[in-house]
């Protein structure tokens, strides 16, 4: 009955499909995580839109919270640990989802862009200091390292820029992720003129140089949308 109903409707094309990968895209804005017992995943709190199977979630364990440091010191944990057998669907307000497979690599992700990560990955958090703090970014950088999957969000279709060919300057509000090992510095393009209220709107950029790349989103909005919703 349901199958008949679906077959005739336009929704048929959107059936859930098992891709066999640990993390895969369902459309552009939804991440499907295939969970099995013993292979837990940490997902952004509030990002679950659906799940299928025997899944349970709890705040990240105390030991991991220590690694997250200040980020997790608030009244709610920024990440939830999902365990069980089944499929978990994650999304963040329609943002594009990128599923990345790390092969003994490490990647720095703007905290508000981290959607999910394998629990086996190492994770360190540092509070953004200095000028970048003024830029109003997600305040926390999460460095994920090891071998496994990580899912990040981007508002709009991103671009990956190679920093080896030329030093790359990125608006901090548009920064999604970057490979570690890059030389990062801030560059100010503030002019005397802008001190009297005539700025170009581009006061400060982060400069990246070295062998690696940065992921840049086509939007200057990195506000953590779940914070608004509470």
């Amino acid at each position: 009955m349901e199958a008949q109903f679906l077959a005739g409707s336009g929704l048929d094309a959107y059936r859930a499909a098992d891709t066999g990968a640990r993390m895969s895209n369902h459309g552009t804005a939804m991440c499907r995580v295939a969970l099995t017992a013993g292979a837990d995943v940490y997902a952004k709190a509030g990002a679950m839109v659906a799940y299928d199977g025997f899944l349970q979630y709890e705040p990240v364990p105390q030991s991991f919270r220590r690694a997250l440091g200040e980020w997790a010191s608030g009244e709610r944990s920024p990440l939830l640990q999902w365990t069980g057998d089944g499929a978990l669907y994650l999304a963040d307000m329609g943002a594009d989802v990128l599923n990345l497979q790390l092969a003994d690599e490490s990647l720095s992700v703007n905290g508000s862009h981290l959607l999910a990560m394998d629990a086996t990955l190492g994770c360190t958090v540092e509070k953004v200091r200095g000028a970048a703090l003024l830029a109003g970014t997600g305040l926390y950088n999460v460095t994920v390292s090891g071998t496994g999957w990580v899912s990040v969000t981007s508002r709009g279709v991103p671009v990956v820029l190679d920093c080896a060919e030329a030093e790359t300057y990125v608006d901090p509000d548009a920064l999604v992720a970057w490979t570690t090992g890059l030389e990062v510095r801030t560059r100010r393009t503030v002019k005397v003129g802008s001190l009297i209220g005539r700025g170009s709107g581009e006061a400060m950029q982060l400069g990246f140089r070295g062998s690696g790349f940065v992921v840049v989103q086509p939007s200057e909005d990195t506000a953590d949308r779940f914070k608004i919703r509470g």
Partner: protein
Amino acid sequence: MSRELAKASRVRISELTASTELYLGVHIAAPGLTFDISCFGLDADERLSDDRYFVFFNQPASPEQSIRLLGAQEGDSEAFAVVLPAVPDAVHKLALTATIDGDGQMSQVAAGHVRIVAGGTEVGRYSFTGAEFSTERAVMLADVYRRGGEWRFAAVGQGFDGGLRALLENFGGEVLDEEQPAPEAALAPVPQQAAAPRPVAAPAAPPVQQPYPDATLPAVPVPPAVPAQQPYPDATLLAVPVPPAAPAPGAAPAGVRISLTKYTELPESPGWVKQNDHLVRISLTKGQDILALQGSMVAYQGKADFAHEGSGMLRKLVGNLTGQQLKLMRITGEGQVFLADEACDLHVVRLEGDSFCVGSDRVLAFEAGLEHEVRRIEGEGLPHGGFFTLQFSGHGTVVVKTNGIPVVLPVTPAPETYVDVQALVAWSRGSQVITTAPVRIRRSAYAGHAAESYSLQFRGAPGNFVVVQPFEV
């Protein structure tokens, strides 16, 4: 509606038709001659780097069916169906050619044409006669090519001395000896020839096997040998894509770089390039400044400088009206700048002597050399009593942003087009905007409709248009 295109003329296909599904008809009237008409899908270097995009009688379609040979049609001796958006990015030019099969020369041609048909109506035609040629045995008729993100049509009409083989060598690049084009041509028909007879052979095999026992025993192993040989070419063909596919799902993790392949930067090219739907890349050159919305830069490489732009002509805009400000910055220097705004869909519009108006809040960037003028559309009942538009004219590029995929509506004199002022993006200058009271048709269109909505009326000569986005700001 059909436009006559002279030899060597070039035209944007969007000027001829809004459709991107084209029918290209070729007709050559030459008593006693037969022609092979083919379409070469060439790369940026005008080379046939992928011979699957050589569409001709033995290979009637490209792999994703974006270019298809239709055969003789009414009025055309050969025709192609081309779906432009489906043509892979690597293919930059579709070259239509005709070569004489057998003896003869192009001067024997009585008359011929290449015509573009979209949606059942002919929109463009390039006609030629044999008098334009002499002893050539082939002719490059016309090109459909990419230029700055748009498809254009060029009426070429260039004779070529050699035949089909020489044409192949001309486009093939690496093809040095004459044998190589032949395997290329020979390889292509294999899938079809193999595909066609195989279903025939399969049903044929069982009845053939039945009579065999009556005949001699040695004949029995022969039939299995024949189908066994047939799958082999197929298997070897399949084997080619398998090796690259095999490592991908393999056990070794792919790595971040590979996961992100589809988002890599486009190869370097001058000018304004759409990196993806939401990002535009501008390669800066000295002396060609860019005016862009303040804060729209997301990344850059090289030496770029961003300065406040507060010229007098925009003072009106930055004026006293709230919510109507267009704050611009001037980008100078050298390097590559990526512009975006709130993940809006971006559209790179190239003006070549045309003129059009864009709502001031829908402009992302434009070349400083472009003539631009601030206009105010006023009307009773409009929010804030009116709104600002920028009118661009001259030669240059404008980037327009829309929320969602817009629709381009034709504007005609008789039935007027009505557009919600909040969904309006841009219109051609020839469209007349009417803001008189009777067009206020959507006020309180539904219950609880607090905000006033206001429709603008557009009227103009055929050929004008208005762009509307699926989003009411």
